[in-house]
């Protein structure tokens, strides 16, 4: 069995809602609510969900760009959630992030050379000549040219910028890369290029990815395992093939049946869910999906379903599968 690189247990992030003259706390937005999962070394774990389901927040919690309200994060045996700010800064060398918007994630006033060199300076890696060499090396790896080093971000296309973002994430030789919607801002043709680049880098540099996206097709293409999030909770987690072949959670089934198939003659049973995603500040009781679930049972509105292993490696949080356990 491969090694667990990152273990997340009971991760929660509640944002307080303050109102009134005295800023009294009147409630919480439960952006991430009790999420647990493991990431194995060398794999790509995809996390999918609608916008607002807390997937990006989860990504930022893992890097402690946001402080978790509760929960444990263990990276390579180290409890990240308990590190001091100073120790956390150092730990970030091993965990890096690729951002969604390649237009916003690069400092417009720095040249590409400076953007790429900065992580090395911050972590005190190498002298000036070594750093320069490493910058050139990575530019080449991500498919850019040596002369790009003196240019500013606005002189590049979206795809090229995202390559710069990837190169920056790789500068410190990280082990885990959290990619937060890395291709959603790009054209489809460019998406494929960037995804292929990420896969190539994964093979060559033995990287582990957490790939956050709302695009089921993209996630299927790149992930070994996929976790589905709904309203701050992880509802299903399993190997990529399993999820797409045999989704268990009604929400996952609905999501998958909404993926367009490029075949006009194709007819399928569509599972259409009605209603909007409920507010995270006032989530439904019990199973948070029960308000929209076509298979709703009585207990769904009262008892929060637990994540259970229904088949080997296939976890789902749904009362429909309660009997299978017993």
């Amino acid at each position: 069995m491969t090694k667990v690189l990152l273990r997340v247990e009971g991760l929660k992030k509640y944002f307080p809602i303050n109102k009134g003259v005295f800023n009294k706390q009147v409630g919480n937005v439960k952006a991430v609510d009790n999420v647990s999962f493991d990431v194995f070394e060398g794999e790509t774990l995809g996390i999918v969900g609608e916008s607002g389901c807390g997937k990006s927040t989860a990504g930022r919690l893992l890097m402690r760009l946001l402080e978790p309200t509760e929960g444990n994060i263990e990276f390579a045996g180290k409890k990240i959630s308990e590190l001091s700010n100073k120790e956390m800064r150092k730990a970030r060398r091993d965990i890096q992030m690729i951002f969604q918007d390649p237009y916003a994630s690069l400092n417009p006033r720095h040249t590409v050379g400076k953007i790429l060199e900065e992580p090395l300076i911050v972590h005190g890696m190498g002298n000036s000549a070594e750093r320069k060499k490493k910058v050139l090396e990575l530019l080449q790896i991500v498919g850019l040219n040596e002369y790009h080093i003196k240019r500013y971000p606005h002189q590049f296309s979206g795809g090229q910028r995202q390559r710069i973002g990837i190169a920056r994430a790789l500068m410190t030789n990280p082990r885990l890369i959290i990619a937060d919607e890395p291709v959603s801002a790009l054209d489809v043709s460019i998406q494929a290029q960037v995804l292929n680049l990420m896969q190539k880098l994964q093979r060559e540099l033995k990287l582990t990815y957490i790939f956050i996206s709302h695009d089921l097709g993209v996630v299927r293409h790149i992930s070994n395992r996929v976790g589905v999030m709904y309203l701050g909770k992880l509802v299903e987690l399993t190997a990529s093939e399993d999820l797409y072949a045999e989704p268990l959670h009604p929400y996952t089934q609905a999501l998958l049946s909404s993926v367009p198939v490029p075949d006009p003659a194709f007819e399928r049973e569509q599972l259409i869910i009605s209603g909007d995603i409920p507010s995270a500040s006032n989530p439904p009781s019990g199973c948070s999906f029960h308000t929209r679930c076509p298979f709703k049972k009585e207990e769904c509105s009262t008892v929060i379903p637990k994540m259970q292993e229904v088949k080997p490696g296939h976890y789902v949080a749904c009362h429909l599968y309660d009997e299978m356990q017993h």
Partner: protein
Amino acid sequence: MAEVIDLKKDAVQNRAAGPWREGWRSFKKSKISLIGAGIVLFFIVLAVYGPNIAPQGVNEQDFTKRLLAPSGQHWFGTDDFGRDIFSRVVHGARISLWVGLFSVILSAIVGSVLGIVAGYYGKWIDTIISRLFDIMLAFPSILLAIAVVAVLGPSLQNALIAIAIINVPNFGRLIRSKVLSVKEEEYIVAAKAIGMRDIRILFSHILPNSMTPIIVQGTLAIATAIIEAAALGFLGLGAQAPAPEWGKMLADARIYLLKAPWTMIFPGLAIMLTVLGFNLMGDGLRDALDPKMKS
């Protein structure tokens, strides 16, 4: 032939087109702002080479030549002590620019530090600093300057300090609001993700991206600072006699307004021109560096 063209193209591509260079390119396009910059440059030359340009010493008195009208010998006429007004106006450029520039630099530095701290750290620090700015802005600025000078004692240096103090909240608020928006940018999150310290993020990422409004506001503030210095000089709270400060010259000349109007016109014109120059240049800079601020 083809090779030559290729080389040229390559050179163009490789030229680093930084944000400042782009700013200059669009600044050049506006005639009005170039005129402003020209006026400013002219007064800077006057300030630097004043003693070499002026035909007479600042305080060279000749009582046989009191209140003479402008002529070939005395371009701007003479004042009640028989001093050459042209020479005094030329020397005055140094005082006004010096006060304008240094008071603005001083307030920009203090205001920026306070504004950055307030904007970046937020919470109670922000509340304290912002309320302090509010209190200072509640006073009419010239009144506050008069109060400061009254405490420190009237002199050119104290006028400079007073002007610097009253301008601090303007810069502070400006940069605070800019920092508030810049710190939410994804490249700041990215900088944190890389593992940077706050201090590096502040000075290497947030400050450079918050500079443009400071430069624009700074240029415009030099104009108001020159007016304020002149006003303080006029009230006798700034430069003291016999310094050739323009505001002071206006004050000394006002009794001869009807008899010898040139004693007032030329220092007044000098104030107006410098202020106009800085304002035009400031507007041009704003359009060039910060297109979003265009109304």
